[in-house]
């Protein structure tokens, strides 16, 4: 008889022997333990054994999962099927369980003084900021682990999440950036005409949109749309104990839930920003043509002369950082939800406020760093 042995030291052992009985019918003889550890070897060894009989007399212990796979491989699902034979009583009991077909069955707190409440709010803000920072650290650590176990990250959610964030924000991002470009150009137009410098509008909107307005407007819109949605989604999962459910299964919520979301925003915010660049500049162009009588050719020439690739790239890098920040803060606020459904709403709104604050703070930081290094 051909023998296939699963020999992992220390693990429960199972021997699978395939051959024929006296009448020449295929026969499988099993001995050892039928467990989830030995089940993969059993499953492989019994490919194409659909009509075999199976001698279970050598089986010491059997778990329902492995036994169910055996039954499946042999096609011996009917409770009366006697092709599985020789089982000792404990094993037979589990076998009966596996082949059972159950019927389908269907005092209100007094408000604190105003100053105390302001102090409280400030304290909460600091605690939250500290938690977000700690969470960022956790993400870095988890990223290290994820590199070692790439399969523990749920990569397959990333395209869907990108699409969702992209579609959610596309229209408002385009419109908001267009209006921002339009507004900027309008504000400039009276000065520019009086100085006779109408075509400079292309120059100024080009640089302002690509370096500042487009990444900023995009981040604001994505924060409102996707940031709040992510915080609410993870908050709901937290209060319904779905997150705990992941943890007790040995899955890391950071890798399973947070990574795909942060990653998808880091990918999609620059893409949306590139598109916002176009609509923003178009806003400036509309003012240039309608209000300042700048010919299209001249607008394009000015734009090309003034706009470096570096401006655009720098804007997109900024967008990438905004995307990471939105994902990070939204996930942190979501996972920090405690209590019941009503706290999910609070999580979503505090997430948006925290994201908007972070983006404004980052924008200020970039400006300070930029001017310091003369960039």
């Amino acid at each position: 008889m051909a023998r296939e042995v699963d020999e992992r030291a220390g693990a429960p052992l199972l021997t699978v022997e395939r051959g024929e009985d006296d009448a020449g019918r295929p026969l499988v003889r099993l001995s050892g333990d039928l467990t989830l550890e030995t089940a993969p070897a059993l499953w492989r060894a019994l490919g194409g054994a659909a009509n075999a009989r199976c001698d279970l007399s050598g089986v010491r212990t059997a778990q329902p999962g492995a036994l169910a796979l055996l039954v499946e491989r042999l096609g011996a699902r009917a409770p009366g099927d006697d092709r599985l034979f020789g089982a000792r009583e404990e094993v037979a009991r589990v076998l009966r369980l596996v082949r059972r077909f159950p019927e389908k069955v269907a005092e209100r707190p007094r408000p604190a003084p105003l100053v105390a409440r302001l102090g409280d709010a400030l304290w909460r803000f600091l605690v939250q900021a500290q938690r977000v920072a700690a969470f960022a650290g956790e993400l870095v650590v988890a990223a290290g682990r994820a590199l070692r176990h790439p399969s523990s990250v749920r990569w397959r959610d990333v395209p869907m999440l990108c699409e969702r964030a992209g579609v959610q924000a596309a229209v408002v991002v385009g419109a908001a950036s267009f209006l921002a470009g339009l507004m900027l150009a309008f504000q400039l137009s009276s000065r520019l005409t009086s100085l006779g410098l109408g075509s400079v509008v292309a120059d100024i909107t080009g640089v302002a949109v690509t370096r500042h307005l487009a990444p900023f407007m995009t981040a604001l819109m994505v924060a409102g749309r996707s940031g709040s949605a992510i915080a609410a989604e993870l908050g709901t999962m937290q209060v319904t104990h779905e997150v705990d459910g992941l943890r007790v299964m040995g899955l890391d919520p950071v890798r399973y839930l947070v990574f795909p979301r942060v990653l998808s925003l880091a990918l999609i915010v620059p893409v949306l920003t590139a598109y916002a660049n176009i609509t923003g500049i178009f806003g400036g162009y509309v003012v240039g043509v309608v209000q300042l009588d700048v010919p299209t050719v001249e607008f394009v020439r000015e734009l090309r002369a003034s706009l470096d690739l570096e401006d655009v790239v720098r804007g997109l890098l900024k967008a990438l950082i905004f995307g990471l920040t939105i994902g990070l803060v939204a996930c942190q606020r979501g996972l920090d939800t405690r209590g019941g459904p009503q706290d999910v709403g609070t999580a979503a709104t505090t997430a948006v406020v925290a994201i908007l604050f972070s983006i404004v703070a980052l924008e200020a930081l970039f400006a300070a760093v930029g001017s310091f290094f003369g960039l």
Partner: protein
Amino acid sequence: MSADDVVIRVQELTIGYDRILLEHVSFEVRRGEVFGILGRSGAGKSALLRHLIGLEPPWTGHVWIEGLGEPRLRVDERPRFGVLFEGGALLGSLTLRENLALPLRTWTALDEAAIDALVTAKLRMIGLAGDEDRLPGELSSGMRKRASIARAQMLEPTLMFLDEPTAGLDPVTAEEIDELILTLNRNLGTTLVIVTHDLASILRTVTRCILLDDETRSIVAEGDPRRLRVASTDPRVHDFFHRLAGRVP
């Protein structure tokens, strides 16, 4: 009862969140038991369970679980026990099949075809064959409970924790869940720790129990619930077993 038979040992455990819920409680769970954690709503049963499985750190005292020591949930480590949360905690965005397949995909070397066969077999065992591709939100609460128990059982743990497995179910469905619990216990030798205040279910399944009291923040009774029900003279115990609205078989 030899020391080998202790599966969980709780010593002088004090737990709480913003206030203390239980103080200096000690008890043991033995192999092969259906161990009940009883008490009125809000007594801290779920909180105690969360501490037993290591989701929350105790204020003081110790929990010890056989083969694990202090329970700490570690990611990247195959879980040693199964847990049913009060609401089921199935992942709402995954179908039933994907929910049940998740622990197998993560922790066994089975290929997709085998996982699929196994998930189908388990769903059949709990009477949910045919609902594989539904989302948890599309199931009744009894179906969700059964599916959650099946998910907790996927890796064939020898120890399981169930929080309110029968709460909010009609008596017939509750009885089916009790049957499932008894099957796990008697046929597979699983040790079960069950949080419940469903009297009928307690009398049917639980072999030994502790009764928590939120006023004294302690254990007020320990033993076989059938005996406690008739023999206890403590008014709190008597109240729990007699006044509590419950289905009595």
